[in-house]
């Protein structure tokens, strides 16, 4: 791969310090809430959250649907065990019944529509548990997913902060090794599990090794789109596809557009820092 490896020790230090500061000092909250799926992103996020806030201030929720394989549930439970969360700090909430209620109320839906409802249902549950535990919802999205828009707006995208949002998927694998995440989780093909058999790389049509190199070359190294295919020895259409996904999903990474009317509206001329004391 062309993408350089990360300095895992330093990255861990930075993320842990920032998480601690953001939750306790800035937001003045008491805990971090993580939805643990059995996948690599949520495993790494849960490990980091527990390290930053302490196991007593980390709450993990397993939110399986009818599309969740047993293997994922087992892997999610192994994450909970590895972290050493007290029993009071984790829960399994099956969302199958909630989804059935939606189906009855809303009529026939495509699998994508149902998938988005699942992601948003999980978001609602995590925020409710966050309110109960005076916590923030710690997002699990990585940089690759965020850039290509491979997430549900207001679903898994509906979080308070994204501690691993600066790490490409292949970086998350590297970090997972360092943190001691179970090998089965690291090697499992990434999937949002919104329907049976769904895998991210199958759906996108490219491996994350290729996706990450394309994203890195285009956006960190500023290599023109037409040169990337020859550097990586991949098809030009594949590069166009990934860059096209980034462009089309820009709206998912930004707050909703506000139409400017007055002299100063929310948007480009509303330049206040997030940490506005």
């Amino acid at each position, binding site marked *: 791969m062309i993408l350089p*490896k*990360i*300095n895992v020790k330093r990255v861990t230090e930075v993320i842990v310090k920032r998480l601690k500061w953001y939750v306790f000092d800035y937001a003045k909250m008491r805990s971090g809430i993580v939805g643990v799926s059995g996948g690599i992103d949520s495993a790494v996020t849960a490990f980091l959250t527990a390290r930053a806030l302490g196991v007593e201030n980390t709450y993990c929720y397993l939110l399986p649907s009818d599309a969740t394989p047993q293997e994922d549930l087992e892997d999610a439970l192994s994450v909970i065990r590895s972290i050493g969360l007290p029993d009071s700090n984790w829960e399994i909430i099956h969302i199958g019944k909630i989804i059935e209620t939606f189906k009855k109320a809303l009529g026939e839906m495509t699998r994508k529509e149902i998938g988005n409802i699942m992601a948003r249902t999980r978001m609602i549950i995590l925020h409710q548990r966050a309110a109960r535990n005076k916590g923030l919802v710690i997002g699990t999205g990585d940089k690759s997913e965020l850039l290509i828009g491979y997430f549900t707006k207001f679903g898994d995208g509906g979080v308070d902060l994204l501690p691993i949002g600066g790490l490409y998927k292949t970086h998350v694998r590297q970090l997972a090794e360092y943190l001691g995440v179970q090998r089965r989780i690291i090697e499992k093909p990434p999937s949002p599990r919104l329907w049976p058999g769904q895998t991210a790389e199958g759906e996108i049509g490219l491996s994350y090794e290729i996706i990450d190199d394309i994203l890195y070359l285009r956006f960190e190294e500023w290599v023109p789109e037409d040169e990337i295919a020859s550097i990586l020895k991949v098809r030009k259409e594949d590069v166009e596809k990934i860059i096209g996904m980034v462009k089309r999903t820009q709206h998912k990474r930004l707050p909703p557009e506000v139409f400017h009317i007055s002299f100063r509206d929310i948007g480009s001329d509303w330049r*206040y*820092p997030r*940490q506005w*004391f």
Partner: protein
Amino acid sequence: MMNKYRIALAQIHSYLGNVELNFKKHISYIERAREKGAKIIVFPELSLTGYLLKDLAYEVSRKCEEKIELLKDYSKDICVIIGVVEEYRIGIYRNSMAVLCDGELKGYIPKLYLPNYGLFEEGRYYQEGDVKSIKVFSYEGLNFGIVVCEDAWHPEPIELLARMGADVVFIAASSPLRGLYGTDETSIEKIWESINVTRAIENTIFIGFVNRVGVEDEEYFWGGSMFVLPDGKIAVRALKMEEDLLIADIDYHILRKARRFSSFKVFRRDLNMRLGEL
């Protein structure tokens, strides 16, 4: 002139826009530096306000002025150098360092090169300082100058200070951490070390680099303040990623010795004139 002179570099985490809280932190660091016998304490760039102020930059200067008034009392037996937003003229702001000695405000040193690339957008908010604002201060026998962050990335501000008589130049910085790739230090840390060492050697002066530390919005300032001797050796280093008060002793003998083995005293006016014509 005494042979040793102690200075302090205050590597602090400032709260963005919260001048009140930052002021309290400044006081505590000044007290600590005084207890350790330092004659000068230098804070990082925009230490009283935080760095990534964005539109808050327009509204913190008055509070800075109030705190500077209060800090005069704390500067009676120690020289205090702090980072502020200065309202230079009505509605015209500068990213400056305020110098307080002997209970008085001795002046402001504005940043000359305002970065406007990547995450930086200083040109939107601040006016760049002019060459007349470059000056050398003298406190209890030590001649020193100050530059702000980006000014050290260009050779001429520090060279000018050195030729005007500064034996020490303090670089007040707000450098965020980027590119955590590889197993070694990041490129920004290596670049800063190279700059500090180079400026010390090329001008045969001491360099006191004081960087911010901690979180501001998306950024994390890495700290790593250092004191570099005129021969390029790094005498002391502060912690990385944590607040720290770095104490350094200036030994004039080291300076004297370094200048006997340096070509800094040679100044090619013709080369500099040619540069000025380009």
